């Protein structure tokens, strides 16, 4: 059985196309149409008026991290080091301590994420066995004036709320 050969029509070989000018004028008519429409009415430009108008962040967007907590306010993290081990950018550094609230044996005393190192891959969220770290804050732009302020501590990570409801988050495939 021979292979099926499909012959494609070669474009650009007619006389009108070889003279160039006809096609050039056609193209110029197209671009001028865009120019003229936008000049007369600039309300239909395909641009977002950032920063006044912000983009819509979907649930599955990997934004800045946060640490979740139990209903009574205690941290869910048990300092198992899964996220730190998994992190390809080595931006997480945890220091474990003894836990006294009977939830588990350990808890983090220090939990630092260096956002300048982080590549926002989401492996830490995947690795966490207790759903203690999430990237659902919806924060997509992290800016500051000095390097030190890009290192997030336990406090910062705990106090940022999630941008979505629990229901939506679960629907997002987490």
């Amino acid at each position: 059985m021979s292979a099926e050969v499909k012959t494609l029509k070669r474009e650009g070989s007619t006389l009108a196309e070889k003279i160039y000018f006809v096609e050039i004028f056609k193209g110029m008519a197209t671009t001028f149409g865009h120019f003229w429409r936008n000049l007369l009415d600039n309300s239909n430009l395909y641009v977002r008026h950032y920063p006044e108008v912000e983009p819509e962040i979907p649930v599955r967007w990997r934004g800045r991290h946060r640490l979740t907590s139990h209903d009574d306010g205690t941290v869910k993290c048990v300092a198992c080091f899964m996220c730190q081990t998994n992190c390809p950018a080595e931006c997480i550094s945890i220091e474990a301590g003894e836990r006294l609230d009977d939830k588990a044996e350990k808890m983090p005393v220090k939990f630092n994420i260096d956002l300048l190192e982080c590549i926002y891959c989401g492996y830490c969220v995947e690795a966490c066995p207790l759903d203690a770290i999430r990237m659902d804050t919806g924060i997509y732009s992290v800016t500051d004036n000095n390097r030190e302020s890009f290192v997030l501590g336990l406090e910062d990570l705990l106090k940022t709320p999630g941008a979505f409801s629990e229901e939506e988050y679960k629907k997002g495939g987490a």
Partner: protein
Amino acid sequence: MSLLDILLVAIRVAFAAFVPLCFIAVCVWMERRGAGFFQDRAGPNRANIFGFRAAGLVQNLADGAKLFFKEDVISDHIQHKFYFVIAPLIVFFTAVVSFAVVPFADTLVLNGKSYVMQGIPIDIGILWFLALAGFSVYGIILAGWSSTNKYGLLGSLRSTAQVISYEIPMGLAIVSLLVVYGTVNLNGMAQYQGQLLFGFIPMWGIILQPVGFLIFVIAAFAETNRTPFDLAEGESEIVAGFHIEYSAMKFAIFFMGEYIAMFASSAIIVTLYFGGYQIPFLATDTLINYAKPVAFLLMLGLPAGMYFFAGWIRKNNVSHYPRENDPRVYEGNIYIKGFWGLVILLELILFAILLCKSGGAAAHIFVVLLQICTFLMKVTMMIFVYIWVRWTLPRFRYDQLQKIGWQVLLPAALLNIFITSAFVVALS
């Protein structure tokens, strides 16, 4: 020399020197906002002074200030620092000076004395432009060579080859034009184009020489290093070509030189093929005789045009997102008031002309001003064509460029000369 003589010399030299410089801002603004609109973007429209954005013109000031205060780097590996520094100056200077022979209005006759309205009153006209346009490439070649950089050298090599292959069709297109006009003086050419063909078509170069026009425009695009012939820059293949090693104000000089060259070559195209300063159907003598009716029509037309312009500002100078007390509406209202003030001023001037004696000095000066406005409007439109082409056509491949130059434009230009000459001989 009377005081009037000196004043008019000062005015025409100032016009030839400063109008190209002012048009840098206009060109850059048109290029960036135009590019935005061609691609359904907005272009730079945020930079402002106290909330006044002037449709994005303020961005030019910001860019200029930035380039002025940047560090001017001359790398250690550059051995010929003199050539390195002088190269942008050559590009800039030749571009400015090449505009000097373009007449921006017909010869002004005051008290029986005539004053030529071009920067340098010489008769060689078009030859001066050709010489300087050829010379400006020396700047690019020097820049690429003295950069001691492989991309720079490639850029200047391309530019050299391109100039050799495109100067010839350009010169030949002009030869056939000279056969038609019978003069090398640009003012003579513009006066020739004030006539009417068959009594009702303006005798513009584009109607007499359509093939020559296409050849000249293509060659002019290549000469000014604009897309689709900007192989010397070719940012996607040779980074930035000849100005890769340039920074800060030296780069800005290159940049400005490029835009002045665009302005100058637009002015030459307009003078050669679009009747120069001539208003269609209204040659200079007719205009002087009918100065009053023309002034009256302008008095009617200006407010009508301003009415629609104000509507356009009101519609487009707003924020396209919910915003309380939109400052852009306030800004737009101030623009509208300013433009209405300008219109009232112009109306007063036109009214004064209506009161003056017809055919007198006032009429002559009015006609000159009218022709300057016409000329600048035509040049602006030609610059827009440059920008329009840039944002429509992709860059040619190098061999295609050479093929078009030698195998298409050169024979076409030669054939055009033969046909034109045959016609001219047969008709005379």
